[in-house]
């Protein structure tokens, strides 16, 4: 009985867990749904893109962002669970940063939302540490051999976000136009920002 119940459909197991907690007054379904809706709809990489665009256009903000990521990101109103201890890594022509969580799935929710499947996948988590250049190539990012790749392991103590390089030819773009160019993948470090 015990082992059979371990292998039940996960949908049923979640239902059992949630219904028991709700019956005992430890939880309510409305709160559960509020969290789900928030992360499905309101929190996502568009937040991080605004941070990046502001850093590209406002040198003082950029300096604050690199000095204290959590505070500078908080200035734009992005805070909350998994948004503490933010460190922003600036890509340069010589150094490219890429972020992973080797143990689980630590990720800066307030600026990037919930991580994509590939970020949580055992293959990405182990391979990007061992062979970052090859993994980036599989993402379509072929860096010159002269570019140093630094892999950063996110944890509960430090959560990383990449500040990508601003692409050439965007000198006249507004902050909003710049933000529209910035992808989630660029802020994890598996892509660069390009002008379409």
């Amino acid at each position, binding site marked *: 009985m015990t082992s059979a119940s371990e292998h039940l459909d996960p949908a049923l197991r979640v239902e059992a867990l949630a219904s028991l907690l709700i019956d005992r007054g430890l939880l309510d379904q409305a709160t559960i749904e509020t969290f789900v809706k928030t992360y499905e709809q309101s929190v996502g990489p568009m937040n991080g893109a605004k941070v990046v665009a502001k850093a590209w256009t406002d040198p003082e903000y950029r300096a604050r962002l690199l000095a204290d990521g959590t505070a500078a990101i908080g200035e734009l109103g992005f805070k909350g669970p998994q948004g503490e201890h933010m460190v922003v890594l600036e890509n340069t022509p010589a150094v490219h940063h890429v972020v992973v969580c080797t143990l*689980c799935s630590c990720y800066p929710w307030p600026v990037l939302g919930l991580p994509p499947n590939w970020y949580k996948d055992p293959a990405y988590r182990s391979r990007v540490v061992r062979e970052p250049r090859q993994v980036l190539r599989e993402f379509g990012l072929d860096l010159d051999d002269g570019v140093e790749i630094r892999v950063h392991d996110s944890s509960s103590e430090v959560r990383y976000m990449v500040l990508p390089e601003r692409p050439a030819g965007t000198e006249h773009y507004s902050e909003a136009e710049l933000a529209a160019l910035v992808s989630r993948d660029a802020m994890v470090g598996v892509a660069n920002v390009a002008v379409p």
Partner: protein
Amino acid sequence: MSHGGPSYLLDSAGPAAPPRDNGELVFAAPWESQAFGVALALHDAGRIDWEDFRQSLIREIADWEAAHPSGEGWSYYECWLRSLERLVSGTGLVAADDLRARRDELAARPAGHDHRHD
């Protein structure tokens, strides 16, 4: 952002699951979003400590990876759910026996009851 979409993302393991657009589905199935929401709501209500949950998740993922070297059958939210079950019974919020009894009760519902098995 759409949701309740197809379940093709459920087993997107493989050596290099392709990168996707920013509009990727956050949850591949309703039970995943419910498991996510239960953990956040328990933490928000002060019932669980997030770092305890994270450590529990790290252990589940490490155990799964040790038992499945090929990576076949990977499901992040199954690890999430197991770590949540373990934490909730470990801290005494819900006794493991009560959880089993509730599962058996739900599993014994008459056929035709709509719960997906994919």
